């Protein structure tokens, strides 16, 4: 496995506040790595350090094999960054923004124009290309932002909460774009507050809380650590509940609501198996709902307390 990013013992404090307390991270080339955590966990700080925006207090950081401290310029040549806050020039048009990036990447005039046109097309901004970026909607600005990051074809891309504040449709469109990037061999380092997003996209997830990594693994490994997912089935009468409770021995019953909570990761196959079983036994059900584990479950299970919303 070739390492795109390797971090050992990364530390950073702002005044008395320890933001990153010696974290280790490894990201394999051509994969999506997701740093998952609540607001104030230190995700943005980690991205800012890895992308050479701010300095670390300690630790060994290598990006594409280059030392973050000794050779930040080589790191900068290998990476593209889309931060949490819009990094487009609001007084320039979409096309001018992309050409600005092409000029700064020294692509040459003709190649710069070609790449700008290509990215405008790819990001569904062709019609808006000659409009000033300040007039763009949030989703359009986010797409332009990412398009600007891709000028010059960086090998490693940092995305700091790329879908926060986007509507569900824009979010799915962004996911699709990220998947396409990785299909092209790019490494993506992504931060998110949403377990669902990390689950959809990431090859590996690290959960960051209070400046430390509290869990790391594939989405499946992580979800095994989080038994919060279940299917809740409500029955028409207590007898039916009794029968069902015997069949699903590992379930938890709620007599008052005439309901059973059956552990499940919520995928279609296990859901179908469960429904088939209910049907075979001719058990009548009133209502059914699926609860997938969310970030709250992760935090409750990994840290033993609800997640705290501390602002930066």
């Amino acid at each position, binding site marked *: 496995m070739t390492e795109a990013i390797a971090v050992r013992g990364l530390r950073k404090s702002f005044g008395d506040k320890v933001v990153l307390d010696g974290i280790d991270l490894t990201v394999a080339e051509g994969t999506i790595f997701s740093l998952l955590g609540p607001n104030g966990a230190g995700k943005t700080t980690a991205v800012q350090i890895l992308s050479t925006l701010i300095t670390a207090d300690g630790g060994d950081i290598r990006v594409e094999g280059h030392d973050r401290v000794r050779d930040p310029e080589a790191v900068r040549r290998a990476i593209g960054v889309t931060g949490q806050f819009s990094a487009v020039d609001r*007084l320039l048009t979409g096309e001018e923004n992309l050409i600005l990036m092409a000029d700064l990447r020294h692509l040459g005039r003709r190649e710069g124009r070609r790449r700008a046109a290509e990215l405008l097309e790819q990001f569904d901004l062709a019609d808006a290309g000659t409009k000033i970026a300040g007039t763009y909607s949030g989703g359009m600005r986010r797409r332009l932002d990412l398009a600007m990051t891709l000028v010059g074809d960086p090998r490693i891309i940092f995305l700091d909460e790329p879908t926060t504040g986007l509507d569900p449709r824009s979010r799915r469109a962004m996911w699709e774009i990220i998947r396409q990037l990785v299909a092209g061999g790019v490494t993506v380092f992504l931060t998110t507050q949403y377990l669902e997003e990390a689950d959809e996209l990431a090859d590996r997830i690290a959960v960051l809380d209070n400046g430390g990594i509290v869990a790391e693994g594939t989405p499946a490994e992580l979800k095994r650590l989080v038994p919060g997912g279940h299917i809740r089935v409500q029955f028409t009468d207590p007898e039916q509940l009794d029968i069902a409770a015997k069949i699903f021995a590992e379930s938890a019953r709620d007599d008052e609501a005439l309901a059973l909570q059956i552990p499940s990761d919520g995928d279609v196959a296990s859901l179908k198996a469960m429904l088939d079983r209910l049907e075979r036994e001719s058990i009548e059900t009133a209502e059914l709902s699926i609860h997938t584990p969310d970030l709250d479950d992760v935090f409750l299970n990994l840290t033993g307390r609800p997640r705290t919303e501390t602002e930066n």
Partner: protein
Amino acid sequence: MSAVSLALTDSATMLRRRLRHFIRYPSMSVQLVGMPIIFLLLFVYVFGGTLGEGLTGVSGGRDAYLDYVTPGIILMSVAATAQGTAISAAMDMTEGIIARFRTMAISRASVLTGHVLAAMIQTLLSVAVVVGVAVLLGFRPSASVVEWLAVAGVVAMVAFALTWLTVALGLVSDTVEAASNMPLPLIFLPFLGSGFVPTESMPAGLRWFAEYQPFTPIIETLRGLLTGTHIGNDAAISAAWCAGIALLGYLWAKKLYNRDPSR
């Protein structure tokens, strides 16, 4: 690409970015050139008659005063544009795109150089407008073509020095408001020098300040080039002041830019 040609290429890119900003946001440029023109009209038409009579060595009322005050107004428009640069630099630093620049493999100071080069172009245009208005009012400089070029050279030199200083002031300011207030003394320095009245007419302490502050030799140099008064070593003193201010401003601005950006 060598470091020098990289710096030149990136600075040219950033200059184009800034010139586009001027075109998209022209009200700021109009405001910056409007202020010295208002002062020119005010001083020539309101005070000019009386001040012209009182000028040592020249008499001729308003016309003589127009000749006298124009170099001071030119310097005032250089200072006004420099103030505008402090505001633009401070505003720019609040934009997310600066963070993007910092994570790109580009010449480190090119964002700042872009600001300074664009401000120099803006200054030369603004001074051209101010001189044009002065000529419309009856200003008749005796300068030859070479002297006009020298005037442009002095304006560019002063603009270079002052904008490096105001870029640093823009970076050190926490807010855009602070950035707009901090360079205000620059606008008033022509008053506390030979810009509006000869320094000989001032009381002792003020006169001492007026004669040794950097704007006075610059004004005297411009005045000599435009209207043929004695320049002497004022040109050399101006160049030395500008070199010093430019170096200080450059090093300070670069240091401020290289700080870890505050969160």
